[in-house]
């Protein structure tokens, strides 16, 4: 007993000596309140300004142009509002309770040596069953309503609208770029008609069914403005649909972590008018022509056939030899057929699972980007230049392309020694590289 009193005296004396500090603390409190208020309002203002003024976000999910993307937005936007309301209710309640019921002065006793004086006790409310049931039921009902809408949208997203196009595109993810195999007749069990990389070209307003696969690890295909994402899982084939109501170039990003250069694994969806698309398609089906002898391009082709053709296919000129590279040739197709085998039992050899393939370069110059869409192939591709005009009027990003050929792993992380990514070709002379570029410039 006595001991306790003594102890209490110690607190009290310490407490008094600390009063000076408490003054400081009160001023500080006001300062903190004020500054945090400023900070919060400032932050909110900033956010609003930034979002309103700045619409330059090529990957934004907030301004979809595809049917599926819009359906999703139509579902989530009202839910954002509901969440916003709950947010303000809860935060408002916190602040209001704080403001209304805080006690100050000695009772708040927050000194280092603080000893709490007895103060008033509020009414001791232990609970209230009706209130509890209320705030169990209200969110339940709210969420039930939300889930109905969720389910409706969810199943609607799986619908594919019929169109005059039969086309199905097999999308193959691999470390760290995308390949697209166009099956113009919609039959995915025959070799594709077109093989291209990184840029998925589709006609406007048409539902294009995708068949998403992977050659190595899990990737995820995502063009935010058009639709949500879908994983590319090795050993599985996933259906997905992509559609755009507007023409344009829409960026995408691999969104499942897939190892070293995951961040550099991008892609672009190019949406053309139906006529343009037909034009693009007819061009892609053609093979490349061997450059005239004696030209730089022909010199380049010679380097190419020694240094590059072991991986890269140029239809009509080379077929990949050692790494199961991609192309329309039937031998490489065998690999795909095996890879697509969702049916258990399709045995694959270990090394075909490491992406040994390389982008098909037959129509390299018709693309606007290269190397997993990390680099622009044309410096002016972002301006409203007609996509089909690029080989004609685009300003080739020659510097970057040359650097790429010279030392690709330096330009984009890769594990080339493990058969992933493109190896360095630092032994090439500047002349060789010039010639190579000249050769590739013919690939349109």
């Amino acid at each position, binding site marked *: 007993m006595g001991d306790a009193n003594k102890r*209490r005296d110690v607190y009290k004396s310490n407490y008094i000596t600390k009063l000076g500090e408490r003054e400081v603390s009160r001023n*500080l409190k006001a300062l903190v309140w004020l500054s*945090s208020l400023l900070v919060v309002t400032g932050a909110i203002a900033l956010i609003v300004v930034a979002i309103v003024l700045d619409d330059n976000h090529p990957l934004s999910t907030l301004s979809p142009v595809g049917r599926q993307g819009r359906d999703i937005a139509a579902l989530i936007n009202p839910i954002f509002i509901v*969440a916003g309301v709950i947010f303000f209710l809860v935060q408002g309640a916190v602040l209001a309770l704080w403001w209304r019921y805080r006690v100050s002065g000695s009772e708040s006793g927050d000194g280092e040596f603080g000893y709490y004086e007895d103060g008033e006790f509020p009414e001791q409310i232990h609970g209230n069953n009706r209130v509890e049931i209320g705030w169990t039921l209200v969110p339940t009902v709210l969420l039930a309503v939300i889930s109905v809408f969720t389910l409706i*949208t*969810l199943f609607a997203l799986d619908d594919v609208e019929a169109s005059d196009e039969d086309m199905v595109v097999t999308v193959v993810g691999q470390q760290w770029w995308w390949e697209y195999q166009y099956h113009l007749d919609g039959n995915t069990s025959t070799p594709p008609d077109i093989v291209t990389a990184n840029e998925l070209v589709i006609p406007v307003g048409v539902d294009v069914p995708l068949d998403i696969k992977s050659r190595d690890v899990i990737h995820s295909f995502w063009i935010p403005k058009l639709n949500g994402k879908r994983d590319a899982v090795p050993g599985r084939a996933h259906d997905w649909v992509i559609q755009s109501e507007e023409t344009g170039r829409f960026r995408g990003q691999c*969104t499942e972590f897939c190892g070293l250069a995951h961040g550099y694994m991008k892609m672009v969806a190019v949406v053309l008018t139906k006529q343009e698309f037909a034009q693009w398609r007819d061009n892609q089906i053609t093979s490349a022509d061997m450059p005239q002898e004696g030209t730089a391009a022909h010199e380049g082709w010679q380097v190419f056939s020694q240094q590059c053709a072991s991986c890269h296919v140029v239809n009509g000129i080379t077929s990949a030899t050692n790494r199961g590279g991609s192309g329309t040739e039937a031998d490489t197709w065998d690999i795909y057929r095996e890879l697509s085998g969702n049916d258990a039992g399709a045995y694959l050899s270990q090394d075909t699972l490491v992406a040994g393939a390389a982008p098909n370069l037959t129509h390299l110059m018709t693309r606007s980007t290269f190397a997993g869409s990390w680099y622009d192939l044309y410096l002016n591709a972002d301006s409203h230049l007609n996509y089909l005009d690029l080989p004609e009027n685009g300003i080739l990003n020659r510097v970057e392309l040359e650097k790429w050929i010279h030392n690709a792993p330096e330009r984009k992380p890769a594990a080339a020694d493990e058969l992933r990514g493109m190896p360095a070709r630092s032994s090439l002379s500047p002349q060789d590289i010039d010639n190579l570029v000249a050769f590739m410039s013919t690939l349109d």
Partner: protein
Amino acid sequence: MSTTQGTISASLATRLLGVFSRPQGSEGWKSWLFTVDHKRIGIMYGAAALFFFLVGGAEALFIRLQLATPNGSVIGAGTYNGVFTIHGVTMVFLVVMPMAAAFANYLLPLQIGARDVAFPRLNAFSFWCFLAGGVLLTSSIFIGGWFQNVPDAGWFNYAPNSGVLFSPHKGVDFYAVGLQITGIASLVSAVNLIVTVLNMRAKGMSLFRMPVLTWMLLITQFLLLFALPVITVALFLLMFDRLWESNFFNVAAGADPLLWQHLFWIFGHPEVYILILPAFGIVSEIIPTFSRKPIFGYHFMVASGIAIGFMGWGVWAHHMFTSGMGPLSVAAFAVSTMFIAVPTGVKILNWLATMYRGRLRFTTPMLYAVGVVSMFTIGGLSGVTHAIAPSDTQQTDTYYIVAHFHYVIFGGALLGLFGGFHFWWPKAFGYKLNELWGKASFWVMLIGFNFTFGPMHILGLQGMSRRIATYQASEGFAFWNMVATIGSFVIAVGVAMFLWNVFSSTRNWRRVGRPSVGPDPWDARGLEWMTASPAPEHNFDSDIQVDRFDEFWHRKYGRDEKGKIVRAARAEEIAHDGSNTNVHLPSPSYWPLVLGVGIMLVGYGLIFNLWIAALGVVALVGAIYGWCLEPADDPDTAHGHDHAGRNSLEDEEAITVG
């Protein structure tokens, strides 16, 4: 001491062997190494977790530096992948879980009026085993060169990217083995604590008189108990694949990589509730104390915790909405996920109702607790928007998710745990942390936190993917990333202020001459305040009879004729002062530590060289042998509390297996 033939011959045998005596002494570093005292173990858990928090935080700062500007080149892509992976692993398994374990160890026995946990030696083993796993995981950062062998397949480590084919260095082996070891620690501790709560409550402390924190910790232990074996299976399969070339995730042999995802998330989702429920419990202790009101809707608080625990098992695949499961599965998991908001909302609203018409004292712990209410709600609401499966196909694997989980984990779990540090600090050490510094560090942290993770919502919706080592200027992410990076350094300042507070408060208090703040510095409610601060080794001088919820508070306060609440007794008068040194406690032991070291060696052995593992097995077998043959007490020491050679009927039972 009632002996049987058994003890006699056993202790005889062990004395003949000469080594199996028990360590002595309650001072000095040895007394920490060999302790079996739940409070010391709790403190060690806390200290270790804080250390790992600095490691994980430093990693986070590197992430932020790298992402501060487009085309960042602070660390390369390979290092970046290692950094965010080890950051996630460290923060989840080596920070939040052990920090919660710190509170579980320190407070559970005190809150239920017990002397110790059911199996004190096993408890010590849990800690050393956790530390072994933590050290092993962390050492991956520098073994074989900086970030050369660090796990780099993300904290959920999806197959087949985590296979040897795609991640050929030792990183993922560290992951598999390290998590296996920390898993053993948590599993053992879960069994221990469940038994403690079920079996060792003070007289009259029925289940529904237990503090909310005790309840939440109990639920957490059950979640651990049932979730850990699932990740154990997954990690074993992964380890077999990597070390012994089995085919579980070998797509070429027909495996489906989704199996890993299912197994991981069956564990992983309950895991996130394992992270948050202890913090919920802490908040439920702090808010009533500083509102001068009992917790509003106690039974609903408990029931909603149980409901969260149950529902948490049926929602895991919301992490796999885009994995191609098929629309029916997606639909089912989306709906089940959404409804978890209901019990969680019940908690939030009950806290608000507890504050309603209270007398709110905004001490540092209270600031943290209210911070949780406010910040967790933000994270919870974004969680519900993820549950809307169609829109999650837009959000998943973007920074919108990163924002969500940092709001619930940092803004929920970690703020709660930090609040707990400030709240129970005087109980554990006998002095308070400085309130001024405490509040200042809270505000700095809170502001920094919102500046770091608030912008990530925007970034995510603007399409920034997570786990990308860099981004391009043309993508328009630069501004908010810079804000987030600045914010993260503000957090670091806040953390540094907290550390300074710990340091300077300790120093100041030493200078003042260290009278204890007394048993009950906050005018609080739980039994843990009914004993001296720091809590004496034997916790309570005598057994406590509990007659109602908030027993301690009711002993302090009663009502006068008019029904007004008045003080019935000062805390000092009713609290035990720790003077009863005649209580017998279990003796310290060498073996938990040896066992922990053995397990660590086995771990390294699996990764590097089976001979090391063989050495570990020797240590392990020796430790188990020593453990079993160890006398309940050292026969050579005097018995009594002042000397650490403690011995009692009561505790002997507790260490038969423990």
